[in-house]
């Protein structure tokens, strides 16, 4: 406590008060001596780093090089985020616009009492399950059979073209 008081007097420059007390108090006098010794050691033993060779020249070559662009402090990339968000919003707006084009067919269908789903199905090419079976039955055949059927189909097509489109020679 007493030491603390002495230190405070010392810190705030109340020299005469401190000296008056320290003169009659051996404990504080010892503390005072210890602090003075520390201060002296601090003053006399400050470590000095050896300056690297060519330091001055490097300073002046940097000065001669002209102004350097100081690296910008890395902060949160607000600008990039704003641009990105803008693009996303623009993209979603375009998609939204294109997907909500005024559909004429559903309106017509609605007017005729049909749903838009019926209109879509009506526009699709109609094919029966038998035809699907005929088209897909050959998929499991080996390649040779497949080739033969392709050749025979081609022959039939040529015959069809020849008999229907090539004019007969005049006798």
């Amino acid at each position: 406590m007493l030491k603390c008081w002495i230190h405070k007097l010392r810190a705030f420059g109340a020299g005469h008060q401190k000296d008056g007390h320290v003169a009659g108090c051996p404990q504080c006098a010892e503390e005072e001596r210890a602090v003075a010794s520390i201060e002296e050691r601090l003053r006399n033993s400050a470590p000095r780093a050896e300056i690297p060779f060519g330091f001055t020249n490097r300073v002046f070559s940097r000065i001669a090089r002209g102004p350097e662009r100081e690296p910008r402090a890395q902060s949160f990339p607000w600008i990039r985020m704003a641009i990105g968000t803008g693009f996303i919003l623009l993209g979603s707006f375009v998609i939204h616009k294109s997907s909500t084009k005024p559909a004429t067919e559903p309106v017509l269908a609605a007017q005729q009492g049909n749903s838009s789903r019926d209109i879509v199905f009506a526009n699709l090419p109609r094919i029966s399950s038998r035809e699907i079976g005929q088209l897909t039955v050959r998929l499991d055949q080996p390649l040779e059979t497949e080739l033969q059927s392709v050749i025979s189909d081609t022959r039939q097509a040529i015959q069809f073209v020849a008999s229907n489109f090539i004019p007969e020679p005049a006798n």
Partner: protein
Amino acid sequence: VQVEPIEETLEQLAEKAKTGCQQSYEKIVVALQERVFSYVLQLVRNEEDAEDLAQETFVKAYRHIKSFDGRAKFTTWLYSIAKNTAFNHLRRKKPQEPLEYHQDSLVAPKEQQVGDERDSIWTLARQLKPRLFEVLWLHYAEGFSMKEMAEITKSNSVTVRVLLHRARVALRKKCRIYEKEQFVP
């Protein structure tokens, strides 16, 4: 008759450097390079970084020498540039962390020290809080007054005085503990 050259003060050299005299600025660099390098080294604790930052300090000071108005001492002005440069460097290294973090991480105490280094009062001082170490360094190693330290640390002289007082008390305690450890059989 040999005339002794008149020693120019740093402030006078700075005034000449303002007019574009590079020789005067070179004299300033030569006079202060060791001190600035040592100070920056205390802050960043890395020799390569310290050299680079000390150079950067002198380059910045040269480029902005016209803003030195002579109200403060040239060394005070230069040291505040050095401190800002070192802090910016530490901030760039760890950009996500606030400045207060760097205040606490400026001088990390070394775990293992041997021989004469351990006996040094400055080694014990380094174990103090960074702000306390900083004022000790500026006052005892660099010889700055309270007012000058306040300008460098961008605070007021009362704060600096209190910090210096706390630093002395803390160092005294450290010394006492260290002395006790030494005498333990």
